[in-house]
């Protein structure tokens, strides 16, 4: 059972430890610095912590002693591009602006990890010491159609390494849809059939490249099953990324950022609805979690222990997590609220109401 909860905030990394009753603050790292994402190992010894320093760029630190000491690593970088104004080039040479996602590359390659950034995907085979741009994805013709959603450049924020085969990796991009490799990143194909973007002109709404999947997860126990919380809806896939079905039964709102899937049941997933896109706060000021247990046919709206009335907490895409039992959930908000549940979301307990804005929560 996970005994640490990692909370990435705008003002540092806060680590909480499980005690008899719930979660208590354990340590703080990088106090004052924006932490965009954290990746711990299962034993909590190796921890990667990505910072997004407003002036000085995206940075990456690693600890191999559970956070007692940290080493700054050279972060993923885009290759140098020679440009020629005379040649009429208009595309701005790319630079990594943010590390959005970090994922272990699979149990059969324990020193390897993937990094999703704005704007590209990188791979490290040496625990982050060196990084290589995934050029096949970057050079895919469809990639030129990616565009920013909430950021100027497209953001690669979800990386799903298939538990059946580490060479099979799916990524989600805002806005660039879902893309899949089955050979460890040598070749890629579009895997977003059925996703719908209502913000596009009518004849382009089903173009798989222009989709804005806010978050994507793969069921660990039923890996042919996937969930996406999209900019304008919830989508479920039950056929191993062949196609997506739009789920229209969720109450309150179809808009939101995060999705978490039950570790032992691909039909059970949690969502946090919000008033749609131009406003982005809990509908009617009431914070709720939507849970389905039947693949999206029906939902329950869970609100016990969550603020009801005058609430402006928004949960970002990495701000909702479930542990490996499926019982414990954690949720952190843009206004610094942190909650945990020990019974699958039926009841929530406030851990803190006044942290810095929370970008990500993660159990380990």
């Amino acid at each position, binding site marked *: 059972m996970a005994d640490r909860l990692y909370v990435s905030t705008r003002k540092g990394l806060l680590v909480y430890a499980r005690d008899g009753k719930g979660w208590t603050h354990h340590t703080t790292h990088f106090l004052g610095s924006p932490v965009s994402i954290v990746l711990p190992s299962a034993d909590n010894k190796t921890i990667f912590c990505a910072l997004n*320093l*407003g*002036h*000085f*760029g995206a*940075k990456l630190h690693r600890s191999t002693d559970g956070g007692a000491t940290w080493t*700054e690593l*050279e*972060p993923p*970088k*885009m*290759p*140098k*591009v020679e440009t020629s104004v005379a040649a009429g080039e208009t595309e701005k*040479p*790319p*630079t*990594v602006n943010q590390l959005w996602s970090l994922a272990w590359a699979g149990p059969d390659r324990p020193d390897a990890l993937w990094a999703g950034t704005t704007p590209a995907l990188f791979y490290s085979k040496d625990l982050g010491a060196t990084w290589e741009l995934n050029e096949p994805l970057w050079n895919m013709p469809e990639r030129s159609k990616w565009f920013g959603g909430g950021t100027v450049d497209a953001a690669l924020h979800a990386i799903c390494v298939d538990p059946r085969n580490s060479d099979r990796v799916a990524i989600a991009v805002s806005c660039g849809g879902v893309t899949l490799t089955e050979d460890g990143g040598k070749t890629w194909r579009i895997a977003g059939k059925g996703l719908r973007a209502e913000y596009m002109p009518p004849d382009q709404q089903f173009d798989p490249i222009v989709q804005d999947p806010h978050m994507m997860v793969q069921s660990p126990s039923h890996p042919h099953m996937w969930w996406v919380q999209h900019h304008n809806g919830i989508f479920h896939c039950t056929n191993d990324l062949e196609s997506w079905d739009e789920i229209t039964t969720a109450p309150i709102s179809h808009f939101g950022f995060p999705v978490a899937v039950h570790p032992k049941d691909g039909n059970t997933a949690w969502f946090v609805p919000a008033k749609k896109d131009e406003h982005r706060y809990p509908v009617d000021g009431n914070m709720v979690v939507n849970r389905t247990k039947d693949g999206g046919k029906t939902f329950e709206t869970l609100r016990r222990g969550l603020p009801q009335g005058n609430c402006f907490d928004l949960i970002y895409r990495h701000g909702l997590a479930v542990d490996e039992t499926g019982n414990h959930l954690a949720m952190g908000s843009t206004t610094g609220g942190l909650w945990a549940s020990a019974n699958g979301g039926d009841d929530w307990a406030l851990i803190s109401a006044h942290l810095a804005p929370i970008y990500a929560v993660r159990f380990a």
Partner: protein
Amino acid sequence: MAKVHFTSHLRHVAPSEPVEAAGSTVADVLSDVFARHPAVRGYVLDDQDRIRLHVAVFVDGTHVRRNILSAPVTPTSEVYVLQALSGG
């Protein structure tokens, strides 16, 4: 030689005292500093070796806003590398 000062925000990677650096442009003097203090490079330059958007460079009291790296520097210049307020 020109004297290069770094913001205190970079104290953990940059020299805390002003350092002397050789060169006739901002790019030259920064390269000279980076050769001795490699960790500071990625904090000042982006992946394409441009001055980061929210880093401000002053040469002899003037905030250099365009063509920063090619701006001239003299042997008596004072160069300041600071955080631009646009970065938050």
